[in-house]
């Protein structure tokens, strides 16, 4: 594999003492919150350029979904065809698989204009609280088809759990 080939990974890691998440959960939220992260030499809080577009699309397609956006407007531009979504914190009423379904819907919307052979790639992270109260972070770098397969598997697992 060439070093220029895009990497592909999916992981779920435990997050201990994440102040952002604790503050978020303590505010008894609903839906999800978008988090700006430090970027560049001066670590200024910034958002990936797809963040605003994704949030606007999500609100137009799911008017009931509550989404909190940060104050910062500073945007990161990457001259890559890939989609970079911001870190989001999921409230207790928002399931990770529901959030990923939303992301898949957004990618399908973006792919409407894709030409033959063009693949949508995405980078995303989401933090959430498990049923046993542990805070976890889901990180994904990969293509939309693999993400769809992950969502399908999650649904199946959930069905078996129920």
């Amino acid at each position, binding site marked *: 594999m060439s070093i220029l080939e895009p990497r592909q990974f999916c992981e779920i890691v435990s997050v201990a003492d994440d102040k952002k998440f604790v503050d978020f959960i303590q505010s008894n939220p609903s839906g999800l919150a978008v988090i700006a992260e430090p970027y*560049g030499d001066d670590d200024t809080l910034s958002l990936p350029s797809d963040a605003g577009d994704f949030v606007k699309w999500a609100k137009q397609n799911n008017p009931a979904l509550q989404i909190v956006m940060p104050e910062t407007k500073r945007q*990161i531009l990457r001259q*890559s*065809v890939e989609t970079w979504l911001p870190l989001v914190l999921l409230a207790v009423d928002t399931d990770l698989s529901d959030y990923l379904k939303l992301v898949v819907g957004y990618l399908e919307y973006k792919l409407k204009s894709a*030409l033959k052979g063009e693949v949508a790639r995405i980078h995303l992270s989401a933090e959430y609280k498990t049923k046993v109260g542990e805070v976890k972070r889901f990180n994904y770098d990969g293509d939309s088809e693999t993400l769809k397969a992950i969502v399908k598997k999650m649904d199946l697992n959930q069905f078996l759990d129920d």
Partner: protein
Amino acid sequence: MTRPLHTDRACAIFESLRPLAQNLLHHLNECNFSEAGSAAISLKEFLELENKQNSSDDKELLNDFFVLERYCDFLTLYVILWKRILEGKFSDSWNTLHDVFDLLRLLKRFSNIEISFFEQQLTDLEKAYPYRVFTSIGATFDYYECTICGLDINSPECSHLRNELYGGRLAGAKPMNLMEIDHLAIVSNPRDKRCVVPVYDDADEAFKVVRYLAELVTSGKVPILYFEGLAFSIRKLPNPEYQKLGRNEPCFCGSEKKFKRCCESKEYIENEHVDIVGRARPVEQALV
């Protein structure tokens, strides 16, 4: 049958454009670029007249007019693309090819106009070029300005979604107030494939596939609209350096190893091979 556009009026205009488009493609297929260029101008003039006569502010119709204009732009650039290829202006033609792709993406997003022949042909044509890596920058901006309302496109005050059509206007996001350029990367999947590395001279051997295609078209062996795509394969060819020796003799390559431990198995070498795939067809079929 799927309608090519959303409104009856635009569908009727599209049908009226079809003979003009066919005329353009006939001239192009004969490599008559002057006549094909004139046909492209006729297409634009016809559409401009229709547009002037339209007094409706129906947003769907205005969106359809936007699409029809892009369709005319596409056919015009398609002629320019092949002209540049046949003139041997391969570097320029790469940029034109990506201008054409941008138009095809818009047609695909906002209409059901049939473009599959062009999509297949041109995405394969892209593979005939030597470019595999590109430059890409990372930078931060203060905000993105909506090209329709002028507000921050990511703010709740702006109601427009990027790359959507609103009454015939495409909402774009213009980066405002560059804060910092933080990296320049070499990537295989850039937003803009016009940012190539390295830059080749038109006479470079790297353009051999596209040059060969140009020769086939110019000689009349493969008219432009007969060219369907490329088929890549690996072929085994006799190794011209190969010498059959006794297994324990020193290898012919000068490695000072025994032949059996060195090049005995290299009687054939694997070569990348490209077939240019063509099919005779009526020109009209490219449009349906």
